């Protein structure tokens, strides 16, 4: 009989990320236990491989043992501003680093260094979110991206994220040389192939601009028959003056693109310091994947706030290996835990309310410097 060699190939985190068709199918209680384990492993990896983070954790008096006992909320979070002034790299690295930058709307660009494993896991997180977005990797689909392609996206993380959807389905890009080619996209949508699901994806300001032009020029374009989908990604950033309430945007988009109901509008959330994408379901709820711990924190003392209380959003993301994915963001929002959603999933639900203003951000940064100087 032939000898069989046995080789360990995948750990529990990557099994959940890559091998579960729907990560939310893991029972919630088990997901909480797994998340605890993943957080301990990720914390241990970071304190062992990142000198700066180790000092930060030591200063906060947090050890691996304490995280093991108390769980992910004990992990000290790095204010996102730290990524604006310090190159945080955790070794050993897997291949070359890709420099990923923020758009710098809050003053100064954050820089996050991603190695091969971190990038692959990010793509895994994008793939794992397809089910929640009602997208099928094997169904004929075409993404119309209101953003640049990978080359033009360069280091800018938001654009890069939009550009790599091309790895999943064929994608066309309608920002070239820094300009949004709305008319070109409208022509293309009018001539699109039947039987291929059209998916418009881009920042809300460009989606709004496209809808306004379509309405003005053609009254509407019918994307409904092929289960058309519109996905907004990212906030209004420099265009807060043009921001419209979400409900108003949904109503406009459903009408202009003649979509099959409000459930055909979705939202995705990510930021340069986060290695996971969080997406909304047909009920417009942002489901937090089981490996990611999100909490709302009191801006004064960083304590974890209760269910539905508004605070600064903090993330413990074990998917990041080449940098610490333990981040306190500049966003205000709420988290509800173990919610049974009408979409059939049970998970934590994230609601982002708004970005902190620069003045608030500076105020918080001053306070944070007192409690959390890396």
């Amino acid at each position, binding site marked *: 009989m*032939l000898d*069989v060699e046995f*080789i360990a190939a995948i750990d529990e985190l990557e099994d959940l990320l890559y091998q579960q068709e729907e990560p939310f199918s893991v029972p919630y209680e088990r997901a909480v236990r797994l998340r605890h384990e993943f957080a301990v492993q990720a914390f241990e990896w970071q304190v062992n491989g990142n000198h700066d983070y180790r000092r930060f954790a030591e200063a906060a008096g947090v050890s691996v043992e304490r995280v093991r006992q108390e769980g992910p909320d004990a992990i000290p979070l790095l204010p996102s501003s730290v990524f604006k002034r310090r190159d945080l790299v955790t070794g050993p690295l897997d291949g070359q680093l890709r420099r990923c930058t923020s758009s710098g709307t809050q003053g100064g660009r954050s820089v996050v260094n991603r190695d091969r494993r971190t990038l692959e896991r990010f793509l895994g997180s994008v793939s794992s979110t397809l089910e929640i977005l009602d997208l099928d990797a094997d169904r004929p689909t075409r993404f119309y991206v209101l953003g640049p392609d990978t080359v033009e996206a360069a280091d800018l993380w938001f654009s890069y994220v939009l550009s790599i959807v091309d790895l999943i389905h064929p994608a066309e890009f309608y920002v070239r040389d820094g300009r949004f080619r709305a008319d070109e996209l409208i022509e293309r949508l009018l001539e699109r192939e039947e039987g291929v699901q059209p998916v418009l994806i881009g920042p809300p300001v460009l989606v709004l601009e496209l809808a306004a032009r379509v309405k003005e020029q053609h009254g509407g374009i019918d994307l409904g028959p092929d289960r058309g989908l519109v996905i907004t990604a990212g906030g209004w950033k420099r265009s807060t003056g043009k921001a419209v309430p979400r409900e108003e945007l949904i109503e406009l988009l459903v009408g202009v693109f003649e979509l099959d109901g409000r459930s055909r509008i979705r939202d995705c959330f990510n930021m340069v310091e986060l290695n996971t994408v969080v997406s909304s379901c047909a009920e417009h709820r942002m489901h937090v994947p089981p490996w990611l711990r999100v909490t709302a924190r009191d801006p004064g003392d960083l304590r974890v706030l209760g269910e539905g209380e508004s605070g600064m959003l903090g993330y413990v993301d074990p998917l990041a290996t080449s940098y610490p994915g333990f981040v306190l963001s500049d966003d205000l929002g709420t988290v509800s835990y173990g919610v049974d959603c009408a979409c059939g999933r049970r998970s934590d639900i994230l609601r982002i309310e708004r970005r902190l203003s620069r003045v608030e951000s500076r105020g918080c940064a001053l306070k944070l410097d007192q409690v959390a100087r890396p």
Partner: protein
Amino acid sequence: MKSVSMLSAYLDPDRMPGPGGVMTQPFVLSNRYGALIRGLLQRPAGADADCPVIVAAAGLGVTMRRTMLFATFLLANGFTVVRYDPTHAAGLSDGDFRDVTLTRVQDDLVDVLSWAKTQAGGGQVATLAASLTGRAAIRAAAQDPGLMTMMGSVACVTNVRATVTAVNSADRIGQWLSGQVTDRLATTELFDDEIRWNAYATLAEDGWDTLASTERELRCAAGVRFVNLHGENDPWVRTEDVRAAFAQAADARLIVLGSAVHELNFATARVALGILTHEFISRMRPGCEPGPEPEFGHFVGLNKVERKLQGRLLSLATPSNR
């Protein structure tokens, strides 16, 4: 039917450069039935004329895009890679998926391997196959062991009836054999895709369905080295069937990937392709050391090249088809 020597092929002379100096050329090959197989020939930077060629065959029901990650590993290690979509299967080649049969998949693989030999400049040719296509590759090797030096496979199916029963949660081959279904042109499903009952009928009629047939063919494929990577948690392929089958080969290695399932992902691919690349090098490029694993950017870059070439690939025709 054409003989293999009469196959007509057209290799696009325009080469599109990609990451790491990889050159990609679309090709079309008119198979023995006159249907067009569409594919890509990818050469690593500085490839010699006799650079060994690996034909990467995706599993049934998926397109050659699924072998792009395979290609990045092989190209990074100095192999020329030929990837293609079989006819009457998913992808860009001729034919409707409803008319798929494993026999046709094998015929196309043999035709592509024969053409690939002409691109190897006298160098060696090997196969990297997945799932049911792996079963087809075993028969190709058994019928003509000179076709390939080695067969690397991932999740190779060795007991076809057990696997398609597990996939469908129903014994469709048994239903056909028992006469419950008699209209071979009627449609049913495989992997949620519509196919004709003829696919199941021919699995039985052409002797694909049993473990014994795989064992017999592996005994015949003397001179070919077989290396198979099998997922410990593969829901469709039983470890005991794989072990029993490859035990019949004169030269085989079987590796079980702990906790892995049927399809590869970035994590399991690292391990599987690392092992397979090492095996291909030992066999086909002795004396060479494995290179570093390809970067994520290579994967993104190669995808970009292939997306660009898709329209071109669809427009190509062989001289006899123009």
